[in-house]
Every structure is written in C-alpha cells, then in structure tokens.
C-alpha cells in the first residue's frame, strides 16, 4: 500500500525565494494494489506536485510517503523506481528525437538487467508490449516521429511494466491524445489493475476519472476537499467545490441550461 500522510509542499517563489507558496497542504490518502485512484483538480491545485513527490522528483516539505509501512526516504532510488514508475502528459517530448523510441527499453536494461541474456530480454519486451497491446513489429526500431501519440504513450507504460512495478503514477497521460485513441489507453490502465498494479491517475477531466477509478480524491488549492469511493464522490458530492466542478462538466446528452 502506497500511503501519503500529512504531505505538504511549500515552494519558494519570487526573487531570491523571498515568498512562499503552499502547493500541497496536508494531503493524506492511500493507493492499494489493484486499484485506480484518481486525483482530480484544476490547474494549480497541486495535483502534479503530488505526483512528483510520489515519484520522488520533489521532496515533500513535511509529512511522509510510505510503501507497505516503510518510509520511502529510507529506500534507495534504484530499488524505489523498480516499484514505482511514472508516465507523463506529453508523449512527444518524453522521447529524445535523435534516438529510436525503443531506446527507453535499452536504458532500463543497462540499469536493472545487465546480466540478462538477449533472448530472455527480447521475450520480456515482447511480453510487456503484448500487455499494452502493441505489436513488436509496429513499434520496435522506429523513431518517435514515426509513431502516434497513443503508441508512444503505451510504449512508456510497457517500459514501466518491464520492471514489474507495483505502482504507476499517470499524470494527465491521455490529455494530448485524440478522442478515438485515448479510450484505448484508458482501458489499458484499467486492465493493468488485474495484474495487481496500483495506479494514481492524475487528471482534470472528471469524466475520465469517473470512468476508471475505484476511489477519487478532489484537490482544490492544494487541499483535499473530497475523498472517497468514486460513486459517492460523483453521485453525492459533499463539498461545494466538487458540486461546482461537476456542474461545469460538458455532458454530451444534457445541455447546461437544461441541467440547472
């Protein structure tokens, strides 16, 4: 279980860091293996900051993040990233355009699987690609510009799967994809639950969060305003902010005027 407890992040801003801004204020929630938790909030609500802290790209100012009861600061980074990996918003800038896209796999091999023979490694890659429903012939040995955004995003998920990760931080991973392909990546995330993967799904789109997650955390100005099972949050929101957010979502079959 990945657990955040009283996590706070204060940024220093302004010239010489004279002022401070609290991006995340006393956030606490948990992700169990095999469940998707969505973290929903508007721009500037601190959702990406939480994602970065879980990925240890930023240290929290106070509070603890722990895995199975162990404080993550006590775990070496190499071991930690075997368990927790992230995929980010922009698939086109996640790759170095000079190198072939499958270099992301080779980099994993250099760090974690030096002793693994070629044959075994190829089988491992094929299994990972199969899990994200990509055919090896279509994506291996290609440059990033030859692949679509959905393919690149799925390659990054496959890269994370090579490590037998336990938790995945998915930060707005489908915001840049087209409507006809984004749902496939979303379904894929939901399927990975069956492998026992815990997913932190960060999004500003309530419909997407509602579609795949078991539990939902609503963040407003760095504070958690609502946290609970997805059904409850969407059907009986308690906080005024969640209600306002839900009322603004454009619905396909209802117009705003009719709803109010």
């Amino acid at each position: 279980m990945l657990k955040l407890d009283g996590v706070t992040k204060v940024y220093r801003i302004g010239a010489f860091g004279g002022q401070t801004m609290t991006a995340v204020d006393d956030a606490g929630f948990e992700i169990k293996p095999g469940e998707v938790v969505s973290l929903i909030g508007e721009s500037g609500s601190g959702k990406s900051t939480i994602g970065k802290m879980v990925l240890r790209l930023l240290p929290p100012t106070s509070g603890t993040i722990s895995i199975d009861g162990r404080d993550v600061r006590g775990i070496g980074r190499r071991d930690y990233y075997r368990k927790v990996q992230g995929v980010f918003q922009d698939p086109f800038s996640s790759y170095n355009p000079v190198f072939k896209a499958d270099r992301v796999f080779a980099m994993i091999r250099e760090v974690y699987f030096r002793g693994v023979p070629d044959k075994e490694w190829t089988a491992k890659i094929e299994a990972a690609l199969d899990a994200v429903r990509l055919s090896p012939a279509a994506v291996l040995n290609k440059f990033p510009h030859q692949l679509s955004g959905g393919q690149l995003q799925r390659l990054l998920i496959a890269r994370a799967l090579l490590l037998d990760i336990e938790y995945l931080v998915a930060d707005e991973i489908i915001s840049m994809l087209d409507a006809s392909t984004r749902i496939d990546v979303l379904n894929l995330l939901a399927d990975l639950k069956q492998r026992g993967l815990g997913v932190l799904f960060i999004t500003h789109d309530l419909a997407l969060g509602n579609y795949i997650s078991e539990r939902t955390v609503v963040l407003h100005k760095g504070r958690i305003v609502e946290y609970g099972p997805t059904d409850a949050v969407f059907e009986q929101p308690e906080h005024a902010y969640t209600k306002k957010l839900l009322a603004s979502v454009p619905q396909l079959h209802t117009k705003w005027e009719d709803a109010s």
Partner: protein
Amino acid sequence: MTLEVDDLRVYYRTLKGDVQALDGVSFPLRDGEILGLAGESGCGKTTLGKALIRLDGRMKHVGGSVTLDGQVLPIGDDAKMNPYRFKHVSLIPQYSMSAMNPTRKIGRMVRELLESRREKLDLDELHNRLDLVELPKDVLGKYPIELSGGMKQRMVMVISTLLNPSLLIADEITSALDVSTQKAVVTTLKGFRDRGFVKSMIFITHDISLTNQLADTIMVMYAGKLAEKAPASTVVNAPKHPYTQLLISSLPEVGVRYADKRLTGIPGNPPSLLKPEPGCRFRDRCPLAFEKCAEDPPPVEVEKDHVVACWKAA
C-alpha cells in the same frame, strides 16, 4: 447567409509534395449561426479556420471560394485580405495567453490597434464589454503580464469582437482551460452572439461534448474532408456517418464506468494526406467498408440540414 464556403481546397507545401489538408469542403453559415467544427488532430479543422482569415507561408489556396456577406474573400492574397480582417472576419487564437503585446499597457494597445484600422476607440462601449466579461475597467492601465490566464483570454475575446465582425473564428480556445473556466468562456461567446457583437461564429474544438453546449450546428471533419454536418442534437443523438458514430460512442461521460460499460476506441490511424488514395479516407478504419468505398463519397443531404459523406448513409 453570412458565409458560403464552396469546394475549398488548401494544401500545405512541403519538400515531399503537397499535403492535402483541406480537400474540397463546402458549407453555408447562416446569420446568427454558431458552427462547431470537430475532429481529430490533422483532420483539417484548424486549416479551415486559418484559411478564412490568414493563410500562412506554407499554405496554398488551390481551389474553391469563400463568400462573406455577398463579397468574395480574396483568401489567397494576404494584402487584399487585410481590409477584411478584424472588421469583417476576426479570430480568437488558440494562444490567447500570449496574443497581447507585452510591452504595451492594454488600453494603449487597443487604441493603437484601432488606429491601425482607422477606427476610433469608443471608450464607453469598451467599458460596457469589459463589464460584460466581468473584467474591471482598470485592466486597461495594466500590462498583460499582470493578468491571469483566464483574464487574458477574456480580454482577447473583447478585443477580437470590438469592431462587431460578421464572422468570428474561435480556434481551440478552451483546450488549455479548466472545466469551470471553459463553461464561463462558452457562455460569454453565446452572449456575444445573442447581443449581436458577432453575426456568426465558427467554434473549432476536438471536444464534442463542449461543442454541443454552444453550437447550433456541428460539422465533423475527417482527413481533410467533411464527414457529417447536422444540427448539434442530431450529430450527438443520431449520427449517420460511421466515423461520427464511433467517435461519439468512444466518449466517456460522467456516470459511465469501466466496470459497467466498456467503451472502445477506433483502431488504426488517419491516412497520410501527402498523396492520399482516391476514395473514402475513413475506409481503412471503417467497419462498414465495402467495394464502393474506393470511390469518393459525395456529401449528400440525407434530410434537411443533415449532410453525410458516406455511401452507406445515403
């Protein structure tokens, strides 16, 4: 009829040849009508929007005509287009956040902009419109950097419509905004139309759910061609083109859960527009494709105001 687009073709020049980004699109736009233009990236929706106001250096007007208020727009000629811009056709760009001159106070920038069009600034009218979008009057004495993203967006909306253009093009103006700000922007645009600041509007977006909140008519494009055009409720509830049907059914809505109802995407990718093969461009991804799809399907009006370009629908 405000706008009449007839068989418009705009290609992009590249080293490998012409990319046929907009390949024979025709549609009318009535007075007071808001047209939602939807489709995936690369379908030609932005190209269409740009073609109506300014072709950039890579774009080439290959054929077809655009008529605005009875006058043929010289869209291929940058200099001749100039008298029409801002007064008759106006644009709210996707990059509203950086559309204003950072070295001028906003009031001065607006005045200079109007002077360049030989128009006088009506300060009362400007204040009225600022009120309407809930911006305080003192923004005119500020630099753009002092405004938040949402405020800048509203300021640009006011500036773009200040000369009451016949046609307003709004290109993906909500994609960088939060849901609650999106709603405010869409409501404001509707208010602009209802108050007669703009006669008609083309609202370009990839978000069909949002378009449906605003538009009277929705036009769906695919790979440079018109796929389907119909009143908004028809496109959403009873689409006839297989692409529209699949697109609508792949949209998750609040209330739809993975556990109860698994949505599916559309397999495959849009074709390259460099040298597209003749015939329906959706046929490789289409579950209903048959031999006839090797011929170009003409847009057919299957019922009043409902145009579909598909052999199966006609």
